[in-house]
């Protein structure tokens, strides 16, 4: 019997750790509740809840919304769609959240999309990039209007990478061909398609297209395959693979530079996480890089985040912060928690956030409810890890710093 109860307690503890989790804040009837769904074991996930918390504190310090404070109810979804859906239902039905933000995983955001509609609760994804999210809204606006994509679409990200390649590399180096090198995920399918398109526009041939499972452990065969293509560049889409591709790229001294979207490299701890292997990696979404000040809000947010949590924010913290502000402004503007009026108010969002001017595409535009991308709106700054620092390298106006690559990288001058 003693043994059975011993095993029983094991099971109980395991369930508590594996299971859906519980809200991190106690209920308060005087507050306006906003739900936050994020994985608390991964840096981009914690970035969401921490970025959202800073925004909520800013709003509350300024008097709240019509005198009522914002209260965040945070659930850990373990980056699993099923856990996220359970959390969403609980936020709406039990916690009475008026809106929900969260998840940087496109597959999870896509799973939450129907629930935003069924429960008539505005939902803003925070870092999920797949075009599919906004395509679904555009295709059937009446049945998906409660979802907003609080981040750049994969197509916009790919276009920004091509812009960076053109401005940062092609001015100095002879880049004739590239290998597209991406993890197999919902967000990289449109990313890779647009890479192929915009690289062709730059006159860069696509020598190969390598996609691999997110849990790949040994990248040697993939790098070997890429090298055999005799390309000049690896154009990458990496977010969920962890540090292995970067560490093995440096360990094996693969002579091809890596440029693209490597969301984990935006983490302030990435240099230490990779023991410096990230030296020379060029990635978009470098909002935390030294000297990046896209708006007057960028640097104060980076400093506050770093002060509170000991490391600069990962990319996901920025859309989380701005999404809480967007929701708060919509609630204030609508003057009610009525979901239809809230969704209408969200569509009219227009303010300067940490990453640029925050507006969502309209129902008539291709990427309905996604964050607007372009000059004067949100742009994608590129950073490079250099000697343990995230250095802003593109657009040049940010700091004027040059890209520098490790000695093992072979780039022919123009």
């Amino acid at each position, binding site marked *: 019997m003693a*043994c059975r109860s011993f*095993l029983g307690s094991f099971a109980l503890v*395991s369930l508590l750790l594996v299971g859906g989790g519980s809200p991190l804040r106690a209920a308060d009837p005087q507050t306006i509740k906003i739900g936050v769904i994020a994985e608390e*074991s991964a840096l981009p996930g914690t970035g969401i809840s921490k970025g959202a918390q800073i925004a909520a504190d800013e709003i509350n310090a300024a008097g709240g919304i019509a005198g009522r404070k914002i209260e965040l109810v945070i659930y850990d979804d373990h980056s699993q769609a099923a856990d996220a859906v359970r959390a969403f239902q609980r936020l709406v039905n039990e916690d009475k959240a008026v809106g929900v933000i969260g998840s940087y995983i496109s597959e999870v955001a896509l799973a939450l999309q129907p629930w935003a509609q069924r429960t008539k609760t505005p939902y803003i994804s925070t870092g999920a990039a797949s075009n599919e999210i906004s395509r679904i809204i555009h295709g059937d606006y009446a049945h998906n209007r409660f979802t907003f994509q609080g981040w750049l679409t994969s197509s916009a990200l790919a276009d920004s990478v091509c812009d960076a390649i053109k401005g940062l590399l092609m001015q100095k180096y002879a880049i004739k061909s590239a290998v597209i090198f991406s993890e197999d995920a919902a967000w990289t399918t449109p990313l890779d398609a647009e890479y192929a398109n915009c690289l062709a526009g730059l006159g860069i041939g696509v020598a190969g297209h390598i996609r691999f*499972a997110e849990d790949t452990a*040994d990248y*040697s*065969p993939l790098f070997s395959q890429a090298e055999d293509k005799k390309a000049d560049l690896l154009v990458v889409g990496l977010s969920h693979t962890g*540090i292995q591709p970067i560490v093995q790229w440096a360990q094996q001294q693969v002579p091809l530079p890596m440029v693209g979207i490597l969301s984990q490299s935006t983490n302030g701890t990435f240099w230490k*996480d990779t023991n410096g292997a990230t030296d020379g990696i060029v990635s978009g979404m470098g909002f935390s890089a030294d000297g990046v000040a896209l708006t007057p809000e960028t640097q104060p947010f980076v400093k506050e985040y770093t002060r509170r949590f000991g490391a600069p924010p990962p990319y996901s913290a920025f859309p989380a912060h701005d999404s809480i502000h967007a929701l708060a402004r919509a609630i204030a503007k609508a003057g009610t928690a009525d979901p239809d009026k809230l969704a209408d108010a969200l569509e009219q969002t227009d303010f300067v956030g940490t990453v640029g001017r925050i507006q969502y595409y309209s129902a008539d535009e291709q990427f309905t409810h996604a964050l607007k991308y372009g000059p004067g709106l949100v742009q994608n700054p590129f950073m490079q890890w250099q000697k343990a620092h995230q250095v802003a390298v593109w657009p040049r106006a940010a700091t004027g710093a040059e890209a520098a690559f490790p000695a093992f990288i072979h780039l022919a001058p123009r």
Partner: protein
Amino acid sequence: MTALRILIDSLAIGSLYALGAVGFTLMFGVCGILNLAHGATMVVAAMTAWMVAGRLGLGGVASLPAGLAAGVITALATYRLVVRPIQQSRALPEAEKEIFILTATLLWGILLREAVAYLFSDSPVSTPALIPGIVRLGRIRLPIDKLLDSFICWGAIAALWLLVNRTKMGQTLLGAAANPRAMTLLGHDLARVYRLTWILYGLLTGLAGVLLAGILGAGSAQSGQLTASAFTIVVLGGLGNVYGSLIAAYAVGTLETTTAYLLSPQIRSIPALLLLVLILYFRPQGLLGRR
């Protein structure tokens, strides 16, 4: 060129698999326990090594003893907190204890995995290279660390072989594996023998975890896969047979690497699993196992 790359990578991966599986098979051979928290033990060692080397900034050399210590502590905790209470329980029928231990180590592994994810992160980590740099074999670049890790694996396995075959302690282990009842009658303290086995297991598994974190990276999400790999290799080689496990480790390493290079990395583990099915069908005792 590709053939040479496959050969080198197969040797490196096979050596790592061999080290990981040797501890697993030693545990089954001497104590009769299939420790399903095996992968989690490797991950705890890897994470500890990474903490010491990366976060505390003490470097790759300091990470090795830290990882080994973490492996031993985790192994002893598994024995003391999970396995021994079941073995000593009078409430459980003897015949059912094996399945209870199997279930308990599985749950313990989940607990360790989630604790690592909660305390650190579920993202994989990597320890710094002991000796950074590469050596060139023609047009092939080979990280020195990968080569060094293979030598360390062989060294550890050779040390285990010497311990088992050339020392009194090793003879006791072999005796306990062959006939534990006779060992008790001869006056040996079986609890001490088992404790020693768990320590050896912790050292081997901890070392495998640290080296894994250096070559491929390690994270909590991999713990189930690592247990499955060790299980596959041990069953393929013959449960409890160290030599069988060594042969199986290199066979699996070669099959996986060849598949990854010539077909696709996405399906690298499938041929090894097919081989396991065939072996179980035609030779259920494994390559070198006895019926």
